[in-house]
């Protein structure tokens, strides 16, 4: 059939309406202008990162960042913490979500509220309470503990604040699970475990991926809670950047941040790719 050509945009042709295009443009500027500036000036050949005058293209600050051992260490710590805490947060979140969705038990609303609490508690309170908790119970990691176990406290803290988010997302996903699906699997001969593995987990998968993404990014840029639970030997990227900025803003920080943004984008892209692959198969 020939495509119709119309001059006026139809009711659903949002992309052809000027007002909508303009508001989209505005939103994009607000969202991305600071990031674009950050990335662009990571290539600026100027000694000061806050300098908004373009002094020519250079990649020397990337080299510098890569040779800054303290920065690299902080960066590796951050990625390790994010990676390990995400795995645990998703497992814990999924189990919590399934229990809350599946079973009825006394004081269930209380339990549900308790799980959601870390989402609303101010981070500063969480940070302080975790720090106090660790020191009260002597749960500090002795100096010289091999990597990555020297990060245990921070990882525990990160799991604590990110798993409720994962649990909420997975719980929401479970709400539109058709219970007849579970019964159909059982009817075909599946045990409880086989139902969980073959039917429930595949259904939860988008929630698991979204939960993991959120946990990962929450952990990656957490400052407040990490600040209270890290020691002098366990510096993370946000804390390192903060201390460097207090000293002076150099394009080195721009460069390191750009790499962090790239990693975040990459992780998101891989997760999304994975999800669309699932859907088309």
């Amino acid at each position: 059939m020939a495509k119709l050509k119309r001059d006026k945009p139809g009711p659903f042709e949002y992309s052809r309406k000027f007002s909508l295009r303009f508001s989209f443009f505005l939103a994009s500027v607000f969202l991305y202008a600071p990031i674009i500036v950050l990335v662009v000036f990571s290539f600026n050949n100027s000694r000061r990162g806050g300098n908004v005058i373009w002094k020519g293209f250079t990649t020397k600050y990337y080299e510098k960042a890569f040779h800054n051992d303290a920065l690299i260490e902080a960066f590796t710590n951050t990625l390790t913490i994010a990676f390990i805490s995400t795995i645990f947060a998703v497992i814990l979140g999924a189990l919590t979500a399934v229990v809350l969705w599946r079973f009825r038990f006394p004081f269930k609303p209380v339990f549900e509220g308790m799980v959601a609490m870390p989402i609303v508690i101010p981070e500063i309170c969480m940070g302080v309470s975790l720090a106090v908790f660790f020191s009260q119970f002597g749960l500090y990691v002795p100096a010289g503990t091999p990597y990555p176990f020297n990060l245990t406290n921070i990882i525990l803290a990160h799991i604590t604040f990110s798993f409720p988010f994962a649990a909420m997302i997975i719980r929401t996903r479970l709400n539109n699970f058709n219970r007849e699906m579970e019964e159909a699997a059982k009817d075909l001969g599946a045990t409880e475990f086989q139902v969980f593995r073959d039917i429930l987990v595949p259904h939860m998968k988008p929630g698991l991926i979204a939960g993991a993404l959120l946990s990962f990014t929450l952990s990656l840029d957490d400052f407040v809670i990490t600040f209270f639970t890290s020691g002098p030997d366990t510096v993370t990227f946000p804390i390192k950047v903060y201390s460097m900025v207090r000293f002076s803003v150099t394009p080195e920080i721009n460069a390191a941040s750009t790499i962090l943004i790239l990693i975040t984008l990459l992780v998101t892209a891989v997760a999304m790719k994975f999800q669309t692959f699932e859907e088309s198969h």
Partner: protein
Amino acid sequence: MAPTPIISVHDVCKYYGNFTALEGISFDIKPGEIFVLLGPSGCGKSTLLRIIAGLETESKGDVVIDGTDMLGIPANKRPVNMVFQSYAVFPHMSVEANVAYGLKLERLPKAEIKAKVAEALEQVHLSQFSHRMPDQLSGGQRQRVALARALVKRPQVLLLDEPLSALDAKLRDAMRLELVKLQESVGVSFVMVTHDQSEAMAMADRIAVLKDGKLRQLDSPTALYKNPCDQFVADFIGRINMFDVSSHTRNGDAVQFDTKTLGTVTLPASLMPANTRNLAIAVRPERVRVGLEQPAAEMIAVTGTLGDVAFQGDSSLVEIILDGERSITALATEAQAETLMALEIGTQVYANWQPKDMLVLPENASE
């Protein structure tokens, strides 16, 4: 000798708190029959089907399948399979994988699974869709996947919960026939739940009519139609003109019934049911003749005015209005309907029928 039943349901009750969903249900299902559980929404049909499948536990009573008492045997170990109302096709598996799932759980060899799946898909005419995902299928095709997935397990009995209710009207009529054909070719008993009496009449070998968790009558479609046991069954199965009886008196071989609409009607005593509480007398529309002249004296007759004539192809439903609110429905043949349609609406007519065509029905035979 009656064949041994494939399923025997004995005195099954189900309570949710102090709500009684099922009470004292007993019946046998014969091998190779289409057995329909029919009743209005909420009468407990699905609950009964789920008890047979093992997805719900009966509060009382036994379910015996193929000679084995099913008490304590979970759904995944019962030799029956179910087609769910929502079809419950697994969305993350292809058509083929859906059908293969139950066989994989049995740990059959790959080649055997492949052959059986291909055969099952052939049976439901889905061979060319085997690699599609469920969201690329129509509702009717998804239902076939659910059918193939259950049948490939070679169950002793296939349970179907309102299998046609989610399809559009035209497809539904075609699927009725197709399901019956499928049942004949695979030979297993079907236990089907429906609230649609015409569906039940068209497909069933036997129908169990349920109301408020109780079994009202169990019979073949024709027997249910010709000899309904009470007013509920008569009204639920097909159309009927029902007249409440205010009092009745017996005179030897005849009984006199006093009714508001028909006055006093005398019928043979052989029509009297065992239970005589809150009687009504009734007549099926196809027994009612509509004429312009005074009918013979032995006929039961009532005068009214001609209402709507609803054309239905080879026959027509004729409405005769008695007074403002009451009316009688008659089923007229093509020729009769043509003469009636030539008349003005409001013309005075006589609706009449023979006394032997009347049914005498208690309100509830089992009370």
